[in-house]
């Protein structure tokens, strides 16, 4: 919010459309709200008028069958969706009240504030462990000391410090799959995002590495809004405070995770979570 708000102030000093800036207070930042979001790939209408909120201080899981639009919806939050040729989005994506699709918004700043972790770990292949973590920081013009401090903090935050502190200069790709994924999480954390989007972050990991990431989500959600797309419903049940069920590009049900997995309101949710279709 701070970074993006600064961008708006710099580029739209008197814009009437930007809402009054709210200074971050405690952890009440990183509130995401979607209002009537539509997303398209050419003529394919992938997300159909979704309105919902992701509150700070919690983890929200998005579940739904393949092709239901869950990844597309999440990729709209940090404007990754528009990187696909022919893709476009309509509606509003608000971060603490600020419209991320405001034409004056710097997309790079959006992606720094709304970090993303992908299905497969993707450390920069030519960079060391610490180089991977601090890559984004070096673009911010921070000093060397600050970069090192924040890189270390990010590794600690990602639960990776103890495992890599003696090989910070080794190639990032030399780590195990689970460690590489946590390295990517550390890389996202290093630029102090307010929201962390995770698109199937454990699908390429073994069960132990998966549980480590899930524990990490539990720790991170206190300071970063977590939105996780997962096909693994048990994972959603384990890590998320709130779960969203999507079908055919539409929001079917959103609610507390324990409610959704024990007594969902919508029959379609019931059918899906019990595995009667998929």
């Amino acid at each position, binding site marked *: 919010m701070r970074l993006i708000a600064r961008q708006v102030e710099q580029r739209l000093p008197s814009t009437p459309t930007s809402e009054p800036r709210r200074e971050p207070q405690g952890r009440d930042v990183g509130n995401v709200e979607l209002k009537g979001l539509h997303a398209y790939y050419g003529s394919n209408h992938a997300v159909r008028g979704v309105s919902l909120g992701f509150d700070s201080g919690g983890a929200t899981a998005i579940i739904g069958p393949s092709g239901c639009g869950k990844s597309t919806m999440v990729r709209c939050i940090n404007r990754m969706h528009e990187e696909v040729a022919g893709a476009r989005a309509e509606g509003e994506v608000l971060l603490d009240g600020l419209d991320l699709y405001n034409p004056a918004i710097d997309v790079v700043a959006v992606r720094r504030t709304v970090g993303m972790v992908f299905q497969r770990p993707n450390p920069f292949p030519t960079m060391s462990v610490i180089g991977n973590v601090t890559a984004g920081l070096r673009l911010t013009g921070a000093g060397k000391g600050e970069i090192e401090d924040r890189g270390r903090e990010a590794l600690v935050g990602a639960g990776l410090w103890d495992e890599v502190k003696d090989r910070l200069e080794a190639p990032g790709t030399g780590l195990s799959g689970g460690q590489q994924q946590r390295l990517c999480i550390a890389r996202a954390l290093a630029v102090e995002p307010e929201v962390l989007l995770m698109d199937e972050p454990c699908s390429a990991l073994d069960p132990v590495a998966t549980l480590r990431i899930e524990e990490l989500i539990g720790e991170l959600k206190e300071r970063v809004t977590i939105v996780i797309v997962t096909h693994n419903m048990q994972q959603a049940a384990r890590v998320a405070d709130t779960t969203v069920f999507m079908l055919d590009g539409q929001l079917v049900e959103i609610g507390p995770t324990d409610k959704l*997995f*024990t*007594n969902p309101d919508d029959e379609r949710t*019931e059918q899906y979570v*019990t595995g*009667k*279709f*998929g």
Partner: protein
Amino acid sequence: MAETRSQYQAELEQLEASALGGLDLVSAALSRTLEAIEHQDVELAQQVVADDDRIDGRYLEVHQSLIALLATQSPVATDLRLISALLHVLKNVERMGDQCVNVCKMIPLSGNEPPSDEKMVKMILAMGSQARALIGQAKRAFEGRDVELARDLVRQDDVVDDLNRDCFRLALEIGDDADRREWAMTMLLAARAIERIGDNAVDIGEQVAFVVTGLFREFEDASHPEATPGI
């Protein structure tokens, strides 16, 4: 969307049928228990005791399979509620079988030709007959996911409770003969066991409501009768 998990669904349905089938075993055990009371048939009573192993075996078999389903299939939503409810049902079935055993073990105590009271015997037989009807009603309510039929179990169980109180009054008035008093006390214990069978049937009805609504609430809360929802 393709239909999935048909094997798992079939297994769950089969386990439900097996668990509820336990109620048929209990109903048969209760029938023979009542017959043993009526005719002071010690051999039949001993057979009921021996056959309780079938009910216990059903409990163990279905319980183990349900635990395996929990471990391997990660059921959620209605499936999870159903499995939770079936575990409760199994426990109630096992307890009802034990109550029949408790009654049957008392029959030798009362002697082959006890100084019985015909009115009290009839009352206990009426209690048993009503309790057996409750067992059948609980099974139908579960099979049909019929909450109203389940709630009606409370009303039906009131009949059992009233008869139990009547038995108590009869026992108080049984007279001064020591043998008759001992027999009456034994029959009171039998009546109490049958009364508990009625309560177990009501408990199963509460599980029906849980499966259907997702909310567990006692139909009657003895410790907070004022909070009992309308029936």
